[in-house]
């Protein structure tokens, strides 16, 4: 197999890094289990390396439309109360969140 198909080793550090990217708290044990599962899954998906992709344009969007645009007109808003009804923490006006105590 070509070198770029080498999947990485999903060691605990990599798993924890990925978990933080998606803001998911995980324990060491979970990181371990997930790591093993990821290796199995990605190993299987490396099958894609057998495809002949030379010169192929990625098919990101269903190219059956373009320039779908909206006129610049104001539409009615959601009422603040309706919005706040689901908000876990608010003071009737603002949504509230705790500060980030780490930097940034």
């Amino acid at each position, binding site marked *: 197999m070509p070198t770029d198909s080498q999947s990485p080793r999903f060691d605990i550090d990599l798993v924890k890094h990925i978990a933080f990217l998606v803001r998911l708290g995980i324990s060491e044990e979970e990181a371990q289990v997930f790591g093993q599962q990821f290796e199995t899954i990605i190993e299987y998906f490396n099958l894609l390396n057998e495809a002949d992709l030379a010169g192929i344009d990625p098919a990101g969007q269903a*190219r059956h439309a373009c320039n779908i645009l909206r006129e*610049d007109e104001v539409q009615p808003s959601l009422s603040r109360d309706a919005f706040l009804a689901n908000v876990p923490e608010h003071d009737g006006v603002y949504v509230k969140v705790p500060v980030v105590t780490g930097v940034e």
Partner: protein
Amino acid sequence: MINSDYEPVIGLEIHAELQTQSKMFCGCSATYAASPEPNTFICPVCTAQPGALPVVNRQAVNQGMLVGLALNCTINPHNVFARKNYFYPDLPKGYQISQYDLPLATHGELEIVTGGKSRRVRVWRVHLEEDTAKLTHQGATVQVDFNRAGVPLLEIVSEPDMHSVEEVLKYGNQIRSILRYLGVNSGDMEKGVLRFEANISVRRYGSNELNTRTEIKNLNSFRTLGRASVYEIQRQIAVLQGGGHIEQETLGWDEIRGVTTSQRSKEHAHDYRYFPEPDLPPLEIDTVWVEQIRRKLPELPAVKRDRFIQVLGLAPADASVLISEKALADYFEATVAAAKSPTHTVANWIVGDLLHLLNDRGLSVENLNLPPSHLAELVDLATDKIITQSTAKELLPELVDTGQNPRALVDKRGLNKITDERVLAEIVDQVIARNPDPVASYLNGKETVFTWLMGQVARATRGKADPLVSSRLLSEALRGMKKPENSC
């Protein structure tokens, strides 16, 4: 001022909110600055309710294209939105819809002149994205207002082509002026509608390499842009001279302490994991569309300034003042068109008395209660000597207050200049008769008394005496009184 062995290398990123009615991806009102009530310009889309979807605002695209064209960019015929993924409470979806690989416009340029030296600053790209919600800190909590979330934002990124703080400020100012000219941004720095990020590095003079740079974020006024840039350049030079190296990092500016501060965060460098936005089909912009927008380009500041100087014959300093706001330039030209007086006379009036009044009263030419036709009339009345210059200047505030037309006011007050020579000759005679000693003084060679005598004529006519006529008549009268010359 700054160490002459090292040259600063600066690029500027400008975020400009666009002045559309509705937001970038939903129909909520975008005029959040006018609404004091938080969380009232919101909907499922801009609050990122599950299942909501974005739809692109056509006017935002048009305004973005206008800016791209004004900056001589190429509008990309195929452009795509992308998701920029990160977590922050002001970013409801957990990603910002922006543009990555295929932005709206690229490869533009802006010419700036500082200290007589001209520099072409390349504009690398212009792209569309959405603004974030507003956060205000209250001790241990943060309050979030989503009125601003989703407002259209244009990001204008320059190449690192600037080599002095003066150039950066000039570039920033010119961009701001162009945005105001295009009507896409108010340029009101205090409201945060225009924000800067400076990318700064230094190198030895004569070198062409690009060294490690730092990025200073959240510079929201020209003052902080200038101060932060100066500081950072000096800091970097000091580090290098001390044998150290510059870390690539994001910095903030502490206005109180006057220093840049590192914003190292809990995570490693941001991995935004950009990918094309699947909820939005691409924008295919053909030449027809581009030309439609190009036709809407107004005459831009630099071109207008050149025209004012070369065609209208204005002094460069005056031209610069007049083009500083499109509304002012338009007002000026409308006044010129309505007036018979020479162009430079009108220019003087506006650059002088009118601007003075505007500043005094905190008005702008858009909300001034003095149509160009009225100003033109006032100027012409003075030029035609129907009233004196000083009278005309005095009348200006009253015209603004009452909205009357000048001729009506002049007639009502009987302010027309006296030019009738018989009337004036009589007054001159009276003044001479009543002031024998000063007259004698003058006749004995004290020429300065003439001015005093002119003053008396003016007083006697309550300022309405035409100075040229009365001056001539007074001279003639006085000359006639001179002792006959000794024959010899």
